[in-house]
């Protein structure tokens, strides 16, 4: 038989033979392939980053917007837009005063309250200081009107995330085990080396995806409601090697806030000019306002030491109630400090070392948007944070 004939017969023998497909072999191969990208997850990631950037941009654009700034006495005196105007026929027996220990500059801001038979005189404390440093209080105003609080619901389900992570871990673990078993029985040292490297990479990814950390955070915020401080404790859970969720609970303070205390209904009366005419007194008492803060967020690690995130920010005014809430004066009228203050935050964070991170947060209030009014004071601020890792890798 000629060599060509022999070769042809051999080739035919091979060509005619069909090897049956082994699903296990495909599973093993699929587990070794790079993870398939989830398009939905990519869109969520990109959307989060885009939303964070947009919010950050808007925040900076409107940060110095005078529409939300607390008016100085000079501005109130000069601006006819002030919604609270002292009526010229108000009686002198019910003065609304801001006590001034050193200077006696008096401004006559007409307060236009129908049926209100009180005279109002605002005494300027210091011509160079704004109303931030004064306190106005209105007492003895009675009304039945109430202002609805913005109802904000929040929360997220960790169970579904844990389930997904657990399932993912099971699949990866079983796949790795199979690969290890098969490789351990093989004499292919070169292949073993490659497979070992792949396993190491897979293990690193697995570790990264399991990372959980507990952090202590302190921060200084400055914004529309003066200077303040923040301290919180947060927990961070990686959903993948890049994506993570983080939740924090803490205390936040705005100090030296000039505010009046009045009920929501009193505030409504002022807005609606439906006051019954009881006298009101204003007295100076600058003080801090304290909030309990809950802030869940979703973040994405752009680089090893740089991450961005966006999330909700819910704050409870610890001293405010519907019957006694802080009101601040702005150029556009008196605005309520929300009792439940809903907002959104965007954050950029950079790792200084393994334990310490520095971050910058921008916060925008959503109360006016949610309530459909302009009655709430927008607590918009930028916060500089330092975060210390207490636990976790």
């Amino acid at each position, binding site marked *: *038989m000629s060599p060509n004939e022999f070769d042809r017969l051999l080739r035919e023998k*091979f060509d005619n033979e069909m090897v049956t497909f082994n699903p296990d072999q495909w599973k093993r191969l699929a587990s*070794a392939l790079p993870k398939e990208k989830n398009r939905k997850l990519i869109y969520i990631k990109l959307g989060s980053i885009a939303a964070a950037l947009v919010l950050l941009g808007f925040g900076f654009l409107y940060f110095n917007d005078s529409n939300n700034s607390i008016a100085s006495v000079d501005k109130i005196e000069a601006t006819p837009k002030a919604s609270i105007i002292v009526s010229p026929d108000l009686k002198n027996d019910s003065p609304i005063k801001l006590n001034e220990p050193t200077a006696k500059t008096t401004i006559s801001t007409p307060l236009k309250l129908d049926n209100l038979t009180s005279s109002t005189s605002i005494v300027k404390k210091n011509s160079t200081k704004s109303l931030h440093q004064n306190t106005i209080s209105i007492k003895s105003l009675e009304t039945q009107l109430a202002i609805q609080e913005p109802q904000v619901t929040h929360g997220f389900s960790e169970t579904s995330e844990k389930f997904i992570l657990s399932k993912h871990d099971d699949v990866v673990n079983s796949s790795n085990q199979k690969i290890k078993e098969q490789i351990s029985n093989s004499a292919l040292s070169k292949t073993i080396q490659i497979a070992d490297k792949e396993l190491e990479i897979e293990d690193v990814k697995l570790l990264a995806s399991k990372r959980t950390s507990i952090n202590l955070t302190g921060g200084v915020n400055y914004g529309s409601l003066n200077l303040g401080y923040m301290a919180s404790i947060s927990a961070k859970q990686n959903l993948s090697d890049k994506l993570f969720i983080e939740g924090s609970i803490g205390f936040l303070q705005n100090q030296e806030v000039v505010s009046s205390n009045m009920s929501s209904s009193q505030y409504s009366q002022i807005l609606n000019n439906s006051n019954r005419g009881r006298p009101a007194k204003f007295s100076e008492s600058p003080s801090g306002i304290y909030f309990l803060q809950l802030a869940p967020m979703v973040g994405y690690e752009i680089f090893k030491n740089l991450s961005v995130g966006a999330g909700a920010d819910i704050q409870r005014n610890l001293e405010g109630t519907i019957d006694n809430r802080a009101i601040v004066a702005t150029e556009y009228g008196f605005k309520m400090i929300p009792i439940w203050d809903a907002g959104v935050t965007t954050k950029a964070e950079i790792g200084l070392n393994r334990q310490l991170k520095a971050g910058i947060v921008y916060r925008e209030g959503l109360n006016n948007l949610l309530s459909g009014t302009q009655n709430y004071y927008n607590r918009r601020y930028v916060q500089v944070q330092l975060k210390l890792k207490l636990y976790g890798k």
Partner: protein
Amino acid sequence: MLSYSEQDIILGCKENKRVFQEALFKQYHSLFFKICARYAIDNEDTEQLLHDGFLKIFTHIEEYKFAGSFEGWMKRIVVNNCLDYVKSKDTRNALNTKYALPVEEVNTSFSASNVLKDIAFKDLLKLIQTLPPTTRMVFNLAVFEGYAHKEIASLLKISEGTSSWHLHEARKTLQKLILKSSKEVNYESK
């Protein structure tokens, strides 16, 4: 089962989509298994070579620019992977302990067509796997992959004459082994 065009599969694999990767694996599993089996020493190594070959195809598929046959491009990857395996020092050591002992002369006229038709595929595969490493590589490249001696010589860094000799040796040895195997089967059946 959905059937995809070759272009769909290639584009899907380039986007790392499992459904297209699985389709490609199913389509070429048998062909590449047979290639790998001719170079491997046993079934376990065959599966490992197939695994590595497909892994290389999927991870390098971005480099395929639709120039030339896609099957040819994949075959080159699989064959080169097999050659690397056979050429590796450790594998050669393992192979040297396994490959064929000198075959005693069988002084019988070789009616290969009948014998080859009767011999089981697995048995034929085992016989090819007993060939010495270089002889087997030359034989596989020349007979199954269609390489010329010049290409084989360049690939294995041997002379063309040596390549030719290995091919001759492979044919001669295989024919003897096939006949011997056939006789053993006949003897056992009696």
